[in-house]
């Protein structure tokens, strides 16, 4: 698809940056995280690129492989993450700016940890039983 540049204006990028700044202020003062759904906005590819450039690149990049690949890149502003979720065909299905200490999906889930703990115990018991047999 061609990029017609029709919404690639600095004003739109500035508006998004202003919203992000507000979310960061909330995170700093109240500890509440927030996000902006980039695919829900009428952004052209060049506008997205301009936003990405203005936010810059930080120190951390994390990859999640669950139902397709997701990438989380901290921008040059601490606490502001560029998150991209692809499906199993590689198509980007969601793209967000997350303003958080760390994107929630990267945190281990309590139920998953319980399940993992149970599996570990079972594996340990199995190993003990094999040794004693």
């Amino acid at each position, binding site marked *: *698809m061609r990029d017609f540049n029709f919404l690639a204006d600095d004003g739109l990028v500035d508006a998004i940056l202003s919203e992000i700044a507000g979310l960061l202020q909330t995170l700093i003062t109240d500890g509440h995280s927030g996000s*902006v759904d980039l695919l829900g906005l*009428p952004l052209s590819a060049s506008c997205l690129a301009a936003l990405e450039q203005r936010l810059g690149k930080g120190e951390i990049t994390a990859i*999640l492989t*669950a139902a397709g690949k997701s990438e989380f890149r901290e921008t040059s502003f601490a606490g502001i993450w560029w998150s991209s979720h692809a499906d199993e065909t590689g198509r980007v*299905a*969601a793209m967000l700016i997350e303003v958080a200490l760390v994107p*929630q999906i990267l945190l281990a*889930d309590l139920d998953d940890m319980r399940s993992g703990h149970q599996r570990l115990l079972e594996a340990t018991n199995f190993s003990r039983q094999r040794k004693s047999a």
Partner: protein
Amino acid sequence: MTQDAETLGTMLARRGFGRRSLLKFAIVMTSSLALPPSLAPVMADNLAKAKRQSVIWLSFQECTGCLETLLRSSAPTIDALIFDFISLDYQEALMASAGAAAELTLRQAVAANQGEYLLAIDGSVPLKDGGVYSLTGGRSNVSMLEEFAVGAKAILAIGTCAAYGGIPKAHPNPTGAVGVEDVISGKPIVNIPGCPPVPEVLSGVLVYFVSFGRLPDLDDRKRPLAYFGTTIHDQCYRRPFYDQGKFAKSFDDEGARQGWCLFELGCKGPTTHNACASLKWNNGTSFPIESGHGCIGCSEPDFWDQGGFYTSLAGGSAAGWRNAGIAAAVGLAGGAAAALSARSKSSRPPEDKP
């Protein structure tokens, strides 16, 4: 644990999917449904606790195209698992049983899920001559619809035929075809029009219903606002050419090769509400305008009788049309009216929530 008592979270865990997969799915779905991203964890939690949703699907006066496109839509992802989680208790084209056994299955499914099942309909409802033009097991479609709507929590009218009568309703409408909402009142109805409908829209509606126990916000034609709130034209990548007055005059001229706007070739994008331009088809490959053909407006009522697919909305046809300036002016006015219409629909309060 029986299959019916199992939650979606348990089922996904049993199949090796962690909660991250479910949360990722919820992030994608909240984006697709135009919900605030902050709702994704809530949706994931609700989905994890959700039990199997019974769906009873009746096919009326239809071509089976809607079912075909929905069946062929899913990559083997978590979306497919969500569909596994839907208990499709009756669907004549897919079920193994037939005849009296199928009738019994239908009765049992309705009795077991009274007041809780989703009734999915594809195809229009013929009313002329007592509805004799489409029968199942000797019963008219209208009779079945009236009976099984009573115990449904909500009704999904899938495809333009079920929503508005579609092609069977086209002039001279020999069978007296109508849409579901012309027969049923007092029940929550969501229309998912399109010929065929975009599969992801059905996924979105089902996921929303399973997550929150009600239908999503609808426009004034009972379509999910998240997918039908704007026109094809508003989302079209050729829109800048329209704004510049650059139109293809035939399907093989220089304008067509340059990807100019197809308005003068009959594109109905300015008056058609659907998500084709954003969700696209065939796993996001393209949509009709991207393939070089104008939108035919198949998700709007009476689309078959709107004056021809190759006649422009301004009334001309490209072959004999010389006054592009007039076309552009009329087109701009039409586009502005369509955009205003879309905005006014967006501002309407949601209707018919269960």
